[in-house]
């Protein structure tokens, strides 16, 4: 049996912030009616979280759930448990108009940490990232320069960034350039 590895296998870079590829992360895309009670229970069983409200990210470590759209959630579970969680979720949702798909291997996850983390991400995404506007608990889907990406904050100085696996190399190089030593802008 071949051993699964993530897109960049924990590559990291130290600049004005530390950029790290986080490794394998179990991810399930769930689409359906977010006000549905059956769906809410499936989310609670899989992650222990409630259904997130508008642009909410309820994440602890590598388990949680993020609001992606009015009818879409991103469910995060440990990579080793994704098949079992997905099977349980699909079972719980049978009879409901909803769809859950394992997208773990289609994605790459990065973390940006350090006092200048906001600056690094602010350079590549057209998003207001001041401390007043963006806080832990929120998620934002946007673009990272030329590719789609989503990010939320684990704590006040750490971002978690999700992009397509095929764009992982591009995003890592992008974040490396944005985190070059001496490149602080001093906006936030």
């Amino acid at each position, binding site marked *: 049996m071949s051993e699964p590895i993530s897109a960049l296998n924990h590559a990291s870079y130290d600049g004005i912030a530390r950029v790290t590829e986080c490794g394998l992360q179990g991810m399930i895309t769930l689409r359906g009616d977010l006000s549905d009670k059956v769906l809410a229970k499936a989310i609670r069983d899989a992650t222990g979280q409630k259904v997130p409200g508008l642009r909410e990210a309820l994440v602890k470590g590598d388990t949680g759930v993020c609001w992606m*759209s*009015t009818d879409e959630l991103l469910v995060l579970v440990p990579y080793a448990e994704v098949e079992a969680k997905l099977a349980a979720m699909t079972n719980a949702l049978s009879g409901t108009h909803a769809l859950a798909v394992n997208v773990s291997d289609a994605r790459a996850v990065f973390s940006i940490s350090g006092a200048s983390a906001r600056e690094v991400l602010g350079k590549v995404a057209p998003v207001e990232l001041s401390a007043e506007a963006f806080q832990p608990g929120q998620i934002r889907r*946007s673009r990272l320069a030329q590719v789609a990406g989503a990010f939320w904050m684990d704590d006040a100085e750490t971002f978690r960034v999700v992009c397509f696996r095929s764009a992982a190399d591009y995003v890592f190089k992008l974040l490396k350039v944005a985190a070059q030593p001496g490149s602080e802008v001093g906006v936030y």
Partner: protein
Amino acid sequence: MLILNCPYCSVAAEETELAAGGEAHLKRFGPDSSDEDFHDYLFMRENPKGVHFERWRHANGCGKWFHAARCTQTLEVFGTYPAQTTEPPQEIKDAITAKRPGWSRRDFS
């Protein structure tokens, strides 16, 4: 720079996060319509200087289509609203009337 508020995820989305979808509120003429109606539906688009209704997609975001009412001359945005409608909602029409009295665009005024 154009900034539109996505009515689905309430993000103030900047133009590069969006994909333009052309004119909004087109009435489709499909099977059994006259060739002329079908031709007009396919090809004839307004290109106004002033009030215009457009379709936009929050492509690098929630992925939803929505409508925007804006002025092509000044880039002023009168409002955005969900796409599940065949005509602009009254509050959007009122907002335009407040700024551009006597406006009209196709069948709307």
